[in-house]
């Protein structure tokens, strides 16, 4: 019998709230974190997209200037969210050799990398900061969180594009089940609202161009969706072996019942139109968590608001849940905060845990004309979830054909 793993701490810094209570209040209300970018580089480089969803609380409002100096913005977000999750867990004493970190990013230290490239070209090699490499490396967030919390049972960095944050939760579960750690701080962070990634995503036609109306640009499942909205921030969860949590009388939000990761092996960016890889991931996560389709009351969907991406997820949910798919309250929270890329799965895991704990499904905004080919029961005003034993799923899919799913159960 595998060790049971529970969630005892949550943290987040997002475009709709700089901490979990604020984010959750807004997620139930339905707000948009997308705004026009005021940066001079938007006009300077004639970017085709003029808006994004910035973190509502800048990391520098939380960290000291000197702390922040040695961290890429993505790492700053990771530290902010993981400190909140850690404080929230109430853990005061811990065997640090049994505490691990699994912290993901999709893109990594893109600001640091490109700033250093500019410095090299404009001022020469002498002016390239000595901290450049540790700041730009993709394991920067995991390493900083490990250093900050004294986590010595390993610091891992799953990288699977927009599935990274969810895969980090998967890795965390595995570490505890395998007996390699008793507590894992897992999550994902991203800070890629930079002209180069915006240009690159726009170039592949992935971003919404609703420049005159940013707040209504992210509209998953809507007939008029035209791409995703770049977001930034981080989410963090404290996973704990159940016996460890019970021994210290911890407040338990929910059980992390099961997780799974699959690969499409279909195309480098396009999702398998039938959602076969996603279907296998959904089924595997439910199998892993000993969950039947009928137990599922809520899904936090990947639903990025791209014309091609939203449909295969519906196909996968239908294939995995059967006719029960019609009875599931589906939330597309990227409608509110945009797409946090490698952080999105972690933030959505936090939202899914809150949905189970609070028994409320968060809101999908901007759904005006639902795509008739995606007849899901989409939550557009906060909805109560039933009493009794309930479970929820959170999906994430990433370029490269990565599919990751977590299954959360009430306790």
């Amino acid at each position, binding site marked *: 019998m595998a060790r049971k793993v529970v969630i005892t701490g949550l943290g987040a810094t997002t475009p709709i709230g700089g901490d979990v209570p604020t984010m959750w209040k807004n997620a139930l209300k339905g707000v948009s974190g997308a705004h026009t970018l005021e940066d001079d580089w938007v006009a300077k480089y004639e970017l085709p997209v003029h808006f994004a969803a910035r973190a509502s609380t800048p990391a520098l409002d939380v960290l000291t200037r000197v702390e922040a*100096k040695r961290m890429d913005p993505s790492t700053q977000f990771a530290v902010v969210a993981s400190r909140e999750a850690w404080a929230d867990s109430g853990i005061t004493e811990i065997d640090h050799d049994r505490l691990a970190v699994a912290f993901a990013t999709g893109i990594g230290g893109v600001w640091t990398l490109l700033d250093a490239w500019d410095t090299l070209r404009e001022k020469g090699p002498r002016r390239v*900061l000595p*901290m450049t490499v540790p700041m730009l490396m993709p394991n920067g967030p995991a390493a900083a969180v490990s250093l900050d919390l004294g986590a010595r049972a390993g610091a891992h960095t799953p990288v699977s594009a927009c599935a990274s944050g969810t895969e980090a939760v998967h890795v965390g579960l595995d570490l505890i089940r395998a007996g390699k750690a008793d507590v894992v701080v897992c999550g994902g962070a991203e800070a890629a609202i930079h002209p180069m990634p915006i240009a690159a995503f726009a170039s592949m036609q992935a971003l919404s161009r609703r420049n005159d109306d940013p707040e209504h640009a992210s509209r998953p499942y809507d007939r008029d969706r035209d791409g995703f909205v770049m977001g930034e921030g981080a989410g963090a969860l404290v996973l704990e072996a159940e016996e460890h949590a019970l021994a210290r009388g911890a407040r338990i939000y929910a059980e992390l019942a099961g997780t799974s990761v699959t690969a499409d092996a279909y195309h480098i960016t396009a999702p398998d139109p039938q959602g076969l890889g996603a279907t296998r991931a959904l089924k595997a996560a439910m199998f892993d968590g000993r969950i039947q389709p009928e137990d599922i009351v809520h899904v936090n969907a990947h639903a990025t608001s791209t014309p091609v991406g939203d449909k295969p997820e519906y196909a996968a949910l239908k294939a995995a849940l059967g006719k029960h798919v019609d009875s599931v309250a589906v939330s597309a929270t990227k409608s509110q905060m945009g797409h946090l890329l490698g952080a999105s799965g972690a933030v959505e895991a936090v939202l899914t845990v809150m949905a189970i704990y609070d028994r409320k499904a968060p809101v999908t905004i901007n759904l005006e004309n639902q795509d008739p080919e995606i007849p899901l029961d989409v939550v557009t005003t906060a909805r109560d979830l039933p009493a009794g034993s309930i479970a929820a799923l959170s999906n994430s899919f990433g370029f490269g054909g990565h599919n990751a799913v977590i299954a959360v159960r009430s306790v």
Partner: protein
Amino acid sequence: MASNEEILAGLAEIVNEETGLAAEAVEMDKSFTEDLDIDSISMMTIVVNAEEKFGVRIPDEEVKNLKTVGDAVSFIANAQA
């Protein structure tokens, strides 16, 4: 040409920016590593910023000889002379 006092004040500002240490703590007889707890990476950042501020070149092999704040002030003053 800056006076030793001006160099000290400028250096203290750079140290404060990099480490958060109060500028007043940066005194001539203080050791960068022992007293100010500055690691090698911060030291290199301070050196590069000092080069730009004072218009001097501090060769990498020279940095290990700059044990105290006073050593750095003297080196910069001589380099400017």
